[in-house]
């Protein structure tokens, strides 16, 4: 569509991709590399939270709950001997299906009511995980979740996932997959109808958009990717517990999203990488770190409601307007 112009962003993604592919050669420290792997995983969750919250305007606080469903699904299935490559899509689909069932009642409420009802669901998931001892092992969780089964690829041979580098490329693959799906959705009529719901739900309905179906679809897709990330997490970490589905995780992703830039594609990734690093550097402040993030969040929401990426886009727009005006003035002078 003529109206959707993302050529400029394509360069941005290309540079990002090259850096991402070369990263194992740039980082040798195992600890930092682990942070990068977690950054990729949490980019997936933040990107999917972005779809329902940033683009569709529905503040789901059950995101870690669906992450947890994916994680427990993969943990339980792979411990039974089922291949990771079957368990992962199955668990993600379970998260999507449960999302659909939860969305049916909760998406009929709006604004803060939706946030509260999904938050309750998120809490219920982690309570169930903590108390259904026969299935989930209770609060001690599940340990000894196997790594993803080796993949045998013709010509290349077998790829195992014991090494950090292989694990990194695994999460990077799924991050790029998520990014591709989000990119296609957001730059489409379907994505525009999500944004219409966010902007003015009543008007969206009156111009012929089925707002309820739109919200359900967005919620289901978001939860599918939350479950996907959860499944990968369980397999790579090797152990999970009810804290895998905790509200705290949802709020972390919320901070990544809001500071990085809601309703942008780069914002959630920037947030998911930069904020954990800042958190690491602020270790010495212990719990006081949260005060800094609280203040930062307030400042960002007041002055940069679209986060870092929103501020960058604003600057670019201003620069373009300025050069347009300059050209216009020169045109007027010569004409």
């Amino acid at each position, binding site marked *: 569509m003529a109206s959707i112009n993302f050529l400029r962003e394509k360069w941005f993604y290309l540079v990002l991709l090259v850096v991402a592919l070369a990263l194992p050669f740039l980082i040798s420290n195992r600890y930092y590399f682990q942070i990068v792997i977690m950054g990729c995983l949490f980019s997936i969750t933040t990107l999917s939270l972005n779809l329902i919250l940033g683009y569709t305007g529905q503040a789901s606080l059950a995101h870690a709950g669906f992450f947890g469903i994916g994680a427990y699904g993969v943990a339980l299935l792979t411990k039974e001997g089922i291949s990771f490559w079957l368990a992962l899509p199955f668990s993600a689909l379970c998260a999507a299906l449960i999302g659909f069932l939860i969305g049916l009642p909760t998406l009929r409420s709006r604004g803060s009511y939706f946030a509260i009802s999904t938050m309750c669901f998120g809490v219920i998931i982690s309570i169930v995980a903590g108390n259904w001892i026969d299935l989930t092992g209770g609060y001690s969780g599940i340990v000894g979740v196997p790594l993803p089964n080796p993949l045998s690829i013709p010509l290349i041979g077998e790829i195992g996932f014991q090494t950090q580098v292989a694990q990194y490329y695994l999460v990077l693959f799924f991050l790029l997959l998520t990014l591709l799906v989000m990119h296609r959705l957001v730059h489409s009529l379907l994505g*525009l109808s999500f944004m219409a719901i966010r902007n003015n739900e*009543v*008007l969206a309905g009156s111009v012929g958009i089925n707002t309820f179906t739109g919200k359900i679809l967005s919620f289901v897709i978001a939860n599918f990717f939350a479950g996907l990330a959860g499944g990968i997490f369980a397999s790579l970490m090797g152990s999970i517990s009810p804290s895998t589905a905790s509200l705290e995780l949802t709020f972390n992703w919320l901070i990544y999203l809001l500071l990085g830039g809601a309703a942008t594609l780069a914002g959630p990734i920037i947030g998911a990488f930069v904020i954990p690093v800042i958190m690491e550097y602020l270790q010495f402040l212990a719990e006081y770190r949260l005060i800094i993030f609280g203040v930062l969040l307030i400042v960002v929401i007041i002055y940069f409601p679209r986060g870092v990426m929103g501020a960058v886009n604003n600057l670019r727009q201003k620069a373009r307007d300025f050069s347009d005006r300059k050209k216009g003035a020169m045109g007027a002078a010569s004409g």
Partner: protein
Amino acid sequence: MLLQVKSVSKHFAGLVAVNDVSFDVRQAEILSIVGPNGAGKSVLFGLISGMLRPTYGQVFLQGEEITGLKPHRVAERGIARTFQTTALFDQLRVVDNLAIGYRLRTTGGFWSTLFHGRRWKEDKDRTTAQVTETLQFIGLANKAFHFVSTLSQAEQKRLSIGVALISQPKIILLDEPTGGLIVEDTDQITDLIQKIHEQKKITVCLIEHKMRMVMGLADRIIVLNFGSVIAEGTPAEISRNPQVIEAYLGAGSNA
């Protein structure tokens, strides 16, 4: 008969906003609904477009009942509307607003969007063509990529008409399309409405306060007062109707 409103009433907790209103909108006419503030004109539009459910009565489009349908279903059937306080997607650009208005005439869902399938491609091409055409028609081609919040009041009114128009409706309901505009802008909107009527052959039903404008534009006029129809007829008939003169200017006036 394109649209039939049959004995429609709307009560809000004891308050009767619309009381037993019946009227028809004929194919390809411009019908104007006039009346003092609080006469129930906008509520009537809400009842037709599915935003409100009538307490009593029925609404038919081309003989098919549409009473109580959800707004998006009514829009799909071919009734488009604008709002009194100009309603647009103000976080988005002009082109995005128009593309959203055309969404109901496209069929692509999740999978075709994901795999850039045949439907997605068709939708994209059709939407681009429609948006381009509508931009020309409403005279906003030079503002295509501007954000709605940067448009003037008159431009926003034109865009909101464009969003209704691009959905290819059978009938378009305009709620005070010139409300709050200066005379020059009012004339432009009047021209646009006439153009919709003549070139697109779309039936127009509009709520308007400016009697001078309505007299020149409408084929027929319906006058509402206190939720009831008090007069119906051609502009010439309405301007001679003593009840209308009383409702508008007060009893004993010789206007």
